[in-house]
């Protein structure tokens, strides 16, 4: 599993960090390129997975809890 972490981080940083000018951000502004492409879906996914798996957190800043048994 360490390998997966490494893969993700390497992938993320191979691109390097050049300054992207404001007028070059047309692609980054597309809906599909947002961290949360659909906030309601993200909220629902957290709610469902958090109640069926032992893990939670790491998505959006936390909201309220639920009984969810």
């Amino acid at each position, binding site marked *: 599993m360490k390998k997966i972490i490494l893969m993700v981080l390497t992938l993320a940083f191979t691109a390097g960090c050049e*300054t992207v*000018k*404001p*007028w070059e951000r*047309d692609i980054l502004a597309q809906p599909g390129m947002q961290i949360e492409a659909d906030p309601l879906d993200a909220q629902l996914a957290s709610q469902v997975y958090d109640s069926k798996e032992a893990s939670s957190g790491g998505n959006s800043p936390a909201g309220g809890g639920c009984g969810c048994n």
Partner: protein
Amino acid sequence: MGCPCEIRLAGSKDPTTEGEHCLGEIRRFEAKYSRYSEDSLVSEINRNAGLSPTPIDDETDSILDYADVCFQLSDGRFDITSGVLRRLWQPDMSALPAPDDIAEVTRLIGWQKVRRKPGEILLPEAGMQIDLGGVVKEYVADAVVQLALKLGVTSGIVNLGGDIAVIGPQPSGEAWDVGVADPDDSTRAIATIKMKQGAITTSGGYERFIEIGDRKYSHLLDPTTGWPADNLLGVSVIADQAVVAGSLSTIALLMPEDEALSFLADSGAPYLAIDTAHHIYRSEVTL
């Protein structure tokens, strides 16, 4: 605005109404900031010079704040009080102004002398003037773009006398082709730039100039010398906002050639500059 304006809107539901809104925005700025109109706020500030502070609104306050940043950044070359020099340098004049007159008028220039408090401005000496044209003309282009975006227009371009701000790409998704005019023949383009967003402005002595004898003088006047800026022939700059591109191109044009070229190279924005020998300089950043 004293220059041809063009707004093209596409991809909108009701172009006529939206176009009217945009033109309304331009007229509002013109009425408020034109130095040609007696009723404008700028004329009022100038009339009150040496007399009393003029109350101003938040919008004007922020435009003056922006002009202040330009003044600092250009070591005093970009000075909205330098318009008094136009009394000496008229487009239809036939002889150079007398050095004494230049010295006399130059004393009325100096943004650092202007007294400001939030909500008011005082030009301390009678005869001093401010001219916001150098900031407002480009800022209007930005304001129209922002207004169009708020109205839901997704495609279009605003051209205010050569300062161009893009609302969004053509309806097909393609970029607009924006031409940079040849200094010798304004109907020809020396470069064509593809733009989907952002703004491009061009400053140059060649679009509006003063001709005395067989010499052309730039309409841009250097407040530090009182003479027309005799430097680069033209500068075009691309930035996200027309107001930013416009101040970068104006500041570069007010600098001596070498200084201007290194200022542009360090500016962080794509540019295209033409010197008096008609050499073309391009930024390394893709234009």
